[in-house]
């Protein structure tokens, strides 16, 4: 195939233990380490492997967000993407808004395949890929743990609650990556240097004239309820007794 589009989101690094603002206004993001959404990183790795097998010509990394998202796109370029596009905005988009922006990029770039993570680890929505596929009128294969490219089709193994489901989709299609699809490569220093010379195009969101008005308003952000501290039992007999006392056996 000719082209694969990979969508990358900038999120709080997965190693960071997030803190909820005491006034309920949101998550404390000041000075927090940001990174590429891990599921998107897996999606990019898969695109690069397809290209390295000689099955694709070009991998284009795209992102939507603040100017600083260029850092994550540069990481994508260092991993091996050929060029990058950032749709710049300071407004946080809902998944439908993000899908509309991605649809505009799809219309412009006409990729044969769009790869992205099954969800971003900040809002945990798990929607954007499916919405893009709907707006585009093309197939979707979510929770992908294996993809095999055929002639104009892709066979995708999906991790579903009942086990592993295999489906076949005509291309172009949208595929969302699950955890076990692959293990992304480490970026080497020379690649970071090389990535600086690759093209990174900036498009202001206003230029695309897309409706992004939100449907949902976040009123409050709170820490999750805390469970009561438990007890330690000394042996199996005490464990069984405690469970029996609680009426659980």
């Amino acid at each position, binding site marked *: 195939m000719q082209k694969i589009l990979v969508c990358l989101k900038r999120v709080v690094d997965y190693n960071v233990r997030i803190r909820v603002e005491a006034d309920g206004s949101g998550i404390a993001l000041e000075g927090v380490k940001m990174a590429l959404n891990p599921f998107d990183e897996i999606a990019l790795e898969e695109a690069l492997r397809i290209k390295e097998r000689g099955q694709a010509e070009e991998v284009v990394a795209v992102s939507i967000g603040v100017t600083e998202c260029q850092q994550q796109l540069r990481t994508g370029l260092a991993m091996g993407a050929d060029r990058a596009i950032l749709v710049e905005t300071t407004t946080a988009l809902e998944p439908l808004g993000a899908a509309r922006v991605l649809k505009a990029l799809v219309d412009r770039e006409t990729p044969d395949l769009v790869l992205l993570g099954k969800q971003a680890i900040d809002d945990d929505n798990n929607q954007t890929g499916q919405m893009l596929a709907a707006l585009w009128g093309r197939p979707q294969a979510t929770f992908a743990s294996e993809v095999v490219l055929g002639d104009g089709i892709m066979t995708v193994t999906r991790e*579903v609650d009942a*086990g*592993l489901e295999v489906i076949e989709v005509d291309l172009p299609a949208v595929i969302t990556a699950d955890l076990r699809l692959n293990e992304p490569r480490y970026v080497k220093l020379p690649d970071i240097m090389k990535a600086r010379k690759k093209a990174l195009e900036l498009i202001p969101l206003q230029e695309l004239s897309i409706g992004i008005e939100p449907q949902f308003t976040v009123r409050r952000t709170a820490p999750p309820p805390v469970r009561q501290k438990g007890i330690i039992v000394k042996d199996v007999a005490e464990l069984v007794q405690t469970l029996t006392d609680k009426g659980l056996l």
Partner: protein
Amino acid sequence: MARVLIVAEHDGEHLNLSTAKCVSCAVSFENDGIDVVVLAADGQAVAGEAAALEGVRTVLRIDHPANETSLAATWAPQIAAVAANYSHVFGPSTTFGKDLMPRVAALLDVGQLSDIMSTTDGRSFQRPIYAGNAIVTVEARDDRLVVATVRTASYPAAENTGSATIEARTLDVELPTHTRFISLRGDAGSERPDLQTAARVVSGGRALSNAENFQMIYDLADCLGAAVGASRAAVDSGFVGNDLQVGQTGKIIAPELYIAVGISGAIQHLTGIKDAGTIVAINKDAEAPIFDLADIGLVADLFTVLPDLIDTLKS
């Protein structure tokens, strides 16, 4: 006034319990009626089960050969076609609903809420973000349809005491042929309870060391009539299949009793179990994070404890 449509999850023969949990969510706020839509090749049995759910008014039965398997691309345009008369369209936040509902929402040109945990009025909803490390209260605009997935661990299943009417519908919707089902392999045919809905779950972790030792988890589960789960580490090490994985990237469950054996308690695992009634942890590392969440902890070597526990429960 609110009218709620719930998309039934099923395997062609039986309704998945997740549907009964969506009904409980819909019942929790004032509305003018709750309907369930069943898409199937032959939905008679499933529609019958849906009609028995307490709180449901009408079951819409849409039979079509293409509905034999639940492909989102095939189902979404049909659901969008019947959604017009409703204020809310809910599906479960299982892999089925997560795959389908955003596609339905986008076809209807509206947003979607994921994993709703509670609502008082059908307008304001609570949902987890950052793997459950924060809970947001979100308000939906009242001039738009609310499409949402319901976090199944947050709701009990509706009772089977209802008697809704069943209505067959034929839709004039063009169905895509660009997406085709090939196969499904899983734990089908197992005599054990379903992990997602079981009242008791026993899970094993990396400390089991291999698939052979993991058999002890099955033995303990069988003593308790429990479902079997596993940590991501145990799945990645190849002890069991991915369909047993409990956690943020696997199944999020809320059994009455959860027994974690040889699981240290990575944050992503804890996210999947924190709504369980009673959590028991067996681990030889007293510092393991699982003990912070556990109601009952036993610091001991699982290879001594498990045979002892299994013997005690058997006698």
